C-alpha cells in the first residue's frame, strides 16, 4: 500500500506545452482560474486566503476595502486571472501594502495588460479578470502537486521545499528535491503518506501543529482531486505562516473532461476568452483540432493516425520546409455534417498551402468522408492542392464520389505516397 516517497523521480508538469501523455488531443482538459480553484479548495476544507474576483477597477477597489475591514489589515494582493502560471514573474501579481487606493492603481495597471509568462508563449494573454486577495506574510513557500500517474495507476502526490518558483526548473536541475508518494485509489490517501511528505519537507521546524495541519490539508486536497475529477492539481506556493498555519496561496486545477457528464457546474467555470477560438469552434462541432506551425492542412480519423501523419509529412518534407499547419481529427463516429465542418475549417485557414486527407475507415465510412469533403469544397471553393488517401470501410464508394465530383484531387495509394505528393504540391514540384 502506497510506496515510500521516491527521490529522483522527475515529474515535470508543463502546463500549456508538449504533447500530453499519449495523443495529439484526444483528451480535452478543462482549465479554470485560480479564484475558481480556491472556491473548490474552500469547499473541501483546504485553507485559502480570503478574496474576491473583480472584473473592473471599481470592483477591485471595493473588494480591497471589504477585505481590509474583514481581515483588519490593509494589505491585499492584486492577481491577474489567466489560465497560465508564472504570473508573478510576469508582473501579474502585485502586493498593495497601502490598502484600497493602492490596490486601485495596481488594478488599473494589470487589468487589460497583455501578460507574458513562461507558459503563455511570447504573445501573452490579455488580463480580463482580477482576484483581490488578503495579503499574507509567510515564513516559507512549499510546492504541492497531484496527478494521475499512468505507470503506477495511482494518484501521485508530489511535494517540494522549493515552492514559489518554476517547479519545472526544480524537476530538471534538482529532482531529488521533489518527494513523491503514490496513493492507492482503493484505500485513498493514508495519513502515514501525508506524514512522510510533512517530515520530508522538514515541517517539524515549524512545530508539530504545522505537521498536523499539513496532513489535514493533504487529505482535503485528495478528496477534492477525486470527487471533482481532476487530472491535475497544483498548489504553488503552499505558504507556511508565522503562526504555523498552512495556506494554499495559489491554485491550479485542471479537470478530466471525460467526467463532464457528472459535473454540470463545469460549463459555468469555463472562460471562453482563454480558449483558442478555432479549437472552441471545433470542440463545439465535436471535433478535435490541433494547431501547428506548418503549411499543410490535415484531415484524419484518430489521434494515433494524426501523429503518424505528422511524422510522415515531416519525414518527407523536412528538407523543403513542409510540415502540418493543423489537424482536424473527425474520430470514429463523425457525421457527414461534421466532416463538412472539419474540411471547411481547414479550407478557411490562411496558413494552409495544401491539404492532406488521410483516412483509414473503421467505423468511419469512406463515403461519409468523401461526401463531406465534396460538400465543403463546393461551398467554399478549393484553391489549394488536395491529396486524398482513403482506405478501409466503403473505400470504393468513397473513391467514386471523389472522382465524380469534378474536384482537382490527387489520389494517393499509401501514407508515404500521400506525403510525397503533399511535399510536391507545396513546393510546386507536382506535375
Amino acid at each position, binding site marked *: 500500500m502506497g510506496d515510500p516517497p521516491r527521490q529522483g523521480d522527475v515529474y515535470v508538469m*508543463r502546463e500549456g506545452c508538449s504533447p500530453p501523455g499519449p495523443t495529439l488531443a484526444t483528451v480535452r482538459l478543462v482549465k479554470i482560474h485560480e479564484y475558481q480553484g480556491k472556491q473548490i479548495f474552500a469547499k473541501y476544507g483546504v485553507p485559502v486566503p480570503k478574496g474576491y474576483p473583480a472584473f473592473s477597477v471599481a470592483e477591485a477597489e471595493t473588494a480591497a476595502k471589504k477585505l481590509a475591514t474583514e481581515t483588519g489589515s490593509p494589505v491585499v494582493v492584486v492577481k491577474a486571472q489567466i489560465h497560465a502560471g508564472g504570473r508573478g514573474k510576469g508582473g501579474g501579481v502585485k502586493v498593495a501594502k497601502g490598502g484600497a487606493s493602492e490596490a486601485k492603481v495596481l488594478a488599473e495597471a494589470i487589468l487589460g495588460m497583455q501578460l507574458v509568462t513562461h507558459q503563455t508563449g511570447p504573445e501573452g494573454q490579455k488580463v480580463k479578470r482580477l482576484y483581490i486577495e488578503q495579503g499574507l506574510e509567510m515564513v516559507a513557500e512549499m510546492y504541492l502537486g497531484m496527478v494521475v500517474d499512468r505507470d503506477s495507476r495511482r494518484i501521485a502526490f508530489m511535494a517540494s521545499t522549493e515552492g514559489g518558483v518554476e517547479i519545472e526548473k526544480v524537476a530538471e536541475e534538482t529532482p531529488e528535491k521533489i518527494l513523491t508518494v503514490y496513493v492507492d485509489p482503493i484505500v485513498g490517501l493514508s495519513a502515514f503518506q501525508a506524514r512522510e511528505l510533512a517530515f520530508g519537507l522538514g515541517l517539524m521546524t515549524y512545530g508539530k501543529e504545522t505537521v498536523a495541519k499539513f496532513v489535514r490539508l493533504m487529505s482535503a486536497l485528495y478528496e477534492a482531486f477525486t470527487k471533482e475529477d481532476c487530472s491535475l492539481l497544483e498548489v504553488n506556493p503552499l505558504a507556511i505562516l508565522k503562526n504555523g498555519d498552512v495556506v494554499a496561496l495559489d491554485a491550479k486545477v485542471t479537470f478530466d473532461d471525460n467526467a463532464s457528464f457528472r459535473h454540470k457546474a463545469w460549463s459555468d467555470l469555463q472562460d471562453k476568452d482563454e480558449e483558442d477560438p478555432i479549437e472552441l469552434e471545433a470542440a463545439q462541432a465535436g471535433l478535435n483540432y490541433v494547431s501547428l506551425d506548418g503549411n499543410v492542412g490535415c484531415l484524419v480519423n484518430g489521434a494515433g493516425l494524426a501523429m503518424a501523419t505528422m511524422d510522415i509529412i515531416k519525414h518527407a518534407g523536412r528538407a523543403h520546409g513542409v510540415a502540418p499547419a493543423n489537424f482536424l481529427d473527425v474520430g470514429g463516429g463523425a457525421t457527414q455534417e461534421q466532416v463538412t465542418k472539419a474540411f471547411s475549417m481547414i479550407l478557411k485557414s490562411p496558413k494552409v498551402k495544401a491539404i492532406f486527407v488521410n483516412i483509414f475507415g473503421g467505423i468511419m465510412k469512406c463515403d461519409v468522408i468523401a461526401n463531406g469533403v465534396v460538400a465543403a469544397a463546393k461551398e467554399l471553393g478549393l484553391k489549394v492542392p488536395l491529396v486524398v488517401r482513403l482506405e478501409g470501410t466503403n473505400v470504393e464508394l468513397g473513391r467514386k464520389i471523389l472522382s465524380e465530383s469534378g474536384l482537382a484531387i490527387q489520389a494517393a495509394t499509401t501514407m*508515404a505516397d500521400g506525403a510525397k505528393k503533399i511535399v510536391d504540391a507545396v513546393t510546386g514540384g507536382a506535375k
Partner: protein
Amino acid sequence: MSILVGKHTKLIVQGITGGAGSFHAKQMIEYGTRVVGGVTPTRGGETFEGKVPVFDTVNQAVKATGANASVIFVPPPGAADAILEALSAGIELVIAITEGIPVVDMLGVRRVLEAMQAEARASGKPVPRLVGPNCPGVITPDQCKIGIMPGHIHKAGHVGVVSRSGTLTYEAVGQLTALGIGQSTCVGIGGDPVSGMDFVDVLELFQADPDTHGVIMIGEIGGGAEERGAQYIKEKMTKPVAAFIAGTTAPPGKRMGHAGAIISGGKGTASAKIDALVAAGAKVAPTPSDMATTLQSMMS
C-alpha cells in the same frame, strides 16, 4: 491457434440495444463471431435481431449461455460499472470499446482487476483479462471479431499485431494483407492512461502462441508501456518484433490540446522508446508506411 479470441469464444454484448452496441453486434455476427447474448438492464426477455437473447444482468447471461467473453459498448457514465459487472460474473475476457471513461473510475477498476487476477493465479484458476477501454477490440481473422475494426481488411495468418492506436492498427493490418501476410490475432490495447492489458501482457501471449511467428507493436509517445514492452522483448521474446512509435516529430514546447504534459524520468519521449526497442533487438519502422515491410525483412 491464436490468442485471446477464436472459435471457442462465446460473446455477450453489454449495451446491445444502444446505437453503437446494436450496429457492431450485427457486424460481429455477420463476421462469424458467436454472439450468444446481450445485456441491457430492464430489457431482459427481448431478443436482438430475432435470435440473440437479451438479459438484465451479466450473471443471468452467463448462466443461460455459458459466455466466456464480453464486449462493452455502454456509454461512459456506466462503462466502469459494466466492466466490474462482467468481471464479477466470472467473464474471463472483457473488451471495453467505450471512449471517454473518467480516469478516476478506471483507477478503481484497474485495482479490482489486479486483485482478481492475483486471486485467480493463487488458486490456479483462469486469469481474468481486460482489454481497453477506448480501443478497437480484438480480432482473430476468419474466426472471431470483437470490436469495431473493419473485418474485411484482415487475412488469417501468423503475424500478431498489438497497438495503442486504433487507426494505426488498421494501417498495419492493411499493409500486411497487401503484402499477402496474414495475422494470427490483432489486439488494440487502447490509448487511455489507465487501462487493462499492456504491451507486455500481449507480447507474452504472442510469444507463447505457436501460430504467431512475428509481431508488429505500435506505440505512442507518453507513459512507460513501450519501455516495459522493450524490456520483455529483450529478456523473453525469441520471435521477431517490428515496432513503430507515433509522435516522433511532436514538437516539444508546443501546446497540443489543453493538457499539461507529465514526463516521468527520461521515459515517455519517442527517442527513449525507440532506443529501448532497438536495444532489445526490435526493428523500428522509420515511417508509419514501413511497418509491414520492416517485419517482413526480419522474417524472411
